[in-house]
C-alpha cells in the first residue's frame, strides 16, 4: 500500500518534480553557482534570517567575510542596538548614525530591539534620531522592544504610530537615573494586531468607577507581562480577554484589592510578589501551568489568605511550581492543614524551588513573628518555647510540615520535584 514507484504514475512523478523544487524555486537564479561554502550557498533570505538574530554590531562585521556578504547586512530586517557594548559612548552614536544612513531603506524593518539603559541616560538627539527612523519605517514593524532612560513622551508617540506591532516590550525610565516614579500607561494606545505585551514599571490610572481596564484595546492579546506595575485611583484591575493565554505578574505591586480576570483561554499564570489581590471573574480556573513566587513584606493576614484563595481557584492546573517562600507564606494561614481543597485535582507535577540564600532577613523576621503570634494564640507556654528555639538558632523550615501533602491531597500521585535556585529571578 505504501510502496512507491515513481515510474508508476505521471501524477507521482509530477509531485516529485514539484517537491524537488520546493519553495525556493523562485530564488534559484540568485544563488551562487559554486555553492562550496556551507553557509554562503544558502539563499540570501535564509542568511538574513540568521543575521537577524545577531546584535547589529556583529551582523555588520560579516561584511568582510566575502563579496557575497559585503552588502548583505544592509538588508537585515531587524535592528538590535545595545549601547552597553559600545565604549566610549560616542562610538555608539557614530554606529547608530552609520546604520541608519547606510541601511537599505527599501528593506522593511520588522523588529527593533533598543537597549539604551546607561548611566546618565541617552543623548536626547540620538534617541530622537532613532525614533524618527522608526516612525518613518513603521509600516511593517512587528516587534518593538525599548529599554531606555529618556523622554517618555517622544517614545510613546513613536510607539503609538506603529500600528502593525504584534509584540511590544517597554521599560522606560524618564527624567534621569534617579527618577523612580512609574510611567503613566496611555489610555489611548491602540494597537489592534498586538499579541505580546511586556510592560515594566508602568502605572495604570483608573476611571470613574474605581475600575481600571488598561488592555481592552488589544483584542488579539495572547501574552501579557506586567512587571513592577501599579494601579492608581482604582480598587479593581480588570483583565478581560478572549485570547489571553499567558499572564505574568512580576514584582507585583499593583496595590489593588481585586483583580477581575475574565480570560477563558488563560493557560499559564506566573507570579512574583506579595499577593494582595483577590481574583474574581473566570479567574484561574482554566489555567494549566502555574508558577508562584510569593513573599510578604508586612505581618498581615491578607497575603497568606489571598494566596490560599488563588490555590482554591486552580481547578484544572496540571503543573504547579512554587518557591519555598510561597509555602512559608501559605503556612501562615490559620489552621491551613484543616482546609479541604476542592481544587488541584488533576495535578500531574509539582515543583518546589528552594531559594538560596534562603530568604531575605526581613522576610525571616516577619515569618518568625507570625509563627510566634500563631503559637501565642494557642498558649503562652508554646510561644515562649518557640522564642527560645529561635534564639537557639532555629530557622523556619523552607518546606513547612505537611505542606506537600496538603497541596497534593487531591492528586496524591503527582510527581514532586524539589530543586534549588541560587538567585531570585523567575524560573
Amino acid at each position, binding site marked *: 500500500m*505504501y510502496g512507491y514507484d515513481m515510474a508508476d504514475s505521471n501524477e507521482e512523478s509530477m509531485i516529485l518534480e514539484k517537491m524537488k523544487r520546493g519553495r525556493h524555486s523562485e530564488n534559484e537564479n540568485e544563488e551562487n553557482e559554486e555553492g562550496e561554502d556551507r553557509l554562503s550557498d544558502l*539563499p540570501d533570505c535564509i542568511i538574513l*534570517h540568521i543575521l537577524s538574530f545577531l546584535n547589529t554590531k556583529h551582523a555588520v562585521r560579516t561584511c568582510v567575510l*566575502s563579496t557575497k556578504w559585503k552588502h548583505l547586512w544592509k538588508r537585515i530586517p531587524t535592528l538590535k542596538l545595545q549601547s552597553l557594548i559600545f565604549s566610549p559612548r560616542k*562610538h555608539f552614536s557614530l554606529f547608530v548614525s552609520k546604520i541608519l544612513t547606510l541601511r537599505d531603506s527599501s528593506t522593511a524593518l520588522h523588529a527593533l530591539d533598543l537597549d539604551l539603559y546607561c548611566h546618565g541616560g541617552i543623548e536626547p538627539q540620538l534617541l530622537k534620531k532613532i525614533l524618527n527612523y522608526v516612525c518613518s519605517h513603521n509600516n511593517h514593524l512587528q516587534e518593538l522592544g525599548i529599554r531606555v532612560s529618556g523622554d517618555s513622551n517622544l517614545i510613546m508617540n513613536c510607539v503609538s504610530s506603529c500600528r502593525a506591532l504584534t509584540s511590544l516590550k517597554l521599560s522606560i525610565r524618564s527624567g534621569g537615573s534617579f527618577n523612580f516614579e512609574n510611567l503613566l500607561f496611555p489610555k489611548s494606545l491602540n494597537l489592534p494586531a498586538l499579541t505580546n505585551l511586556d510592560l515594566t514599571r508602568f502605572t495604570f490610572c483608573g476611571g470613574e468607577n474605581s475600575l481600571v481596564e488598561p488592555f481592552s484595546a488589544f483584542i488579539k492579546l495572547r501574552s501579557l507581562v506586567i512587571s513592577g506595575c501599579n494601579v492608581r485611583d482604582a480598587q479593581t484591575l480588570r483583565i478581560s480577554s478572549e485570547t489571553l493565554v499567558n499572564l505574568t505578574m512580576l514584582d507585583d505591586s499593583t496595590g489593588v484589592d481585586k483583580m477581575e480576570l475574565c480570560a477563558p483561554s488563560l493557560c499559564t499564570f506566573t507570579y512574583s510578589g506579595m499577593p494582595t489581590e483577590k481574583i474574581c471573574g473566570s479567574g484561574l480556573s482554566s489555567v494549566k501551568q502555574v508558577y508562584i513566587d510569593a513573599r510578604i513584606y508586612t505581618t498581615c493576614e491578607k497575603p497568606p489568605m489571598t494566596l490560599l484563595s488563588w490555590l482554591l481557584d486552580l481547578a484544572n492546573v496540571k503543573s504547579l511550581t512554587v518557591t519555598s517562600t510561597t509555602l512559608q507564606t501559605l503556612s501562615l494561614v490559620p489552621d491551613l492543614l484543616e482546609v479541604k481543597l476542592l481544587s488541584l485535582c488533576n495535578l500531574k507535577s509539582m515543583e518546589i524551588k528552594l531559594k538560596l540564600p534562603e530568604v531575605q532577613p526581613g522576610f525571616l523576621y516577619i515569618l518568625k513573628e507570625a509563627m510566634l503570634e500563631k503559637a501565642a494564640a494557642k498558649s503562652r507556654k508554646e510561644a515562649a518555647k518557640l522564642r527560645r528555639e529561635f534564639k537557639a538558632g532555629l530557622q523556619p523550615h523552607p518546606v513547612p510540615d505537611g505542606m506537600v501533602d496538603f497541596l497534593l491531597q487531591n492528586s496524591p500521585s503527582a510527581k514532586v520535584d524539589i530543586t534549588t535556585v541560587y538567585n531570585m529571578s523567575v524560573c
Partner: protein
Amino acid sequence: MAAEKSSIKIITLIAADGSVFEVEPNIVKEMKTVQSYIDELDQNTVSIPLPNVFGNDLAMIIEYCKKHASEEETKEAKEEFDFEFVKRMKSDDKLRLLQAASYLNMESFLQFMAKAIAAEIENQSVEFVRDYFQIESDFTPEEEAELRKENEWAFK
C-alpha cells in the same frame, strides 16, 4: 479545510536516501511544502517524496514536530527538549536542518535553527565565523583591510 484533511489517516514521507517515514497528518502541518500538496490531493493515504532531505535529518525533524504538536507536553518540557535537541547537534547538522526547514517551509523550525546558529556565531570574531562556516574569502588582504577601515565604526 478540516473536513477534507480528516480523510487522510497516514502520510508517508520518503527521504532522499529512500528511507520511509509514516506520520500522522498533524505532524506535517508545520511542513507547509508537504501540507500544500496534501491539500491538493483527495486520497486516504499519501506518499510524498522529499528528494532534498536525508533520512537522518527527516527523522530529527519529525521528532521535533511530534514533541511540539503534542498537547500533553508542558511549555517547560518543550523548552527543555529544544535545549537538548540543539545540544546534541554539530554545526553541520544545524546547517543541514536549516536548509531542510527552508525547503519544507517550516516557519517555527526554521526560526529555531536560525536562532541556534546565530547563538554560535554571536560575539565571535570574523575569522571564527569564516572558519566556522568554511567561507572562502574572495578578498585580497588589502581589500579586506580597506573594507574594515570603511566600516571601522562597527569594529570598535
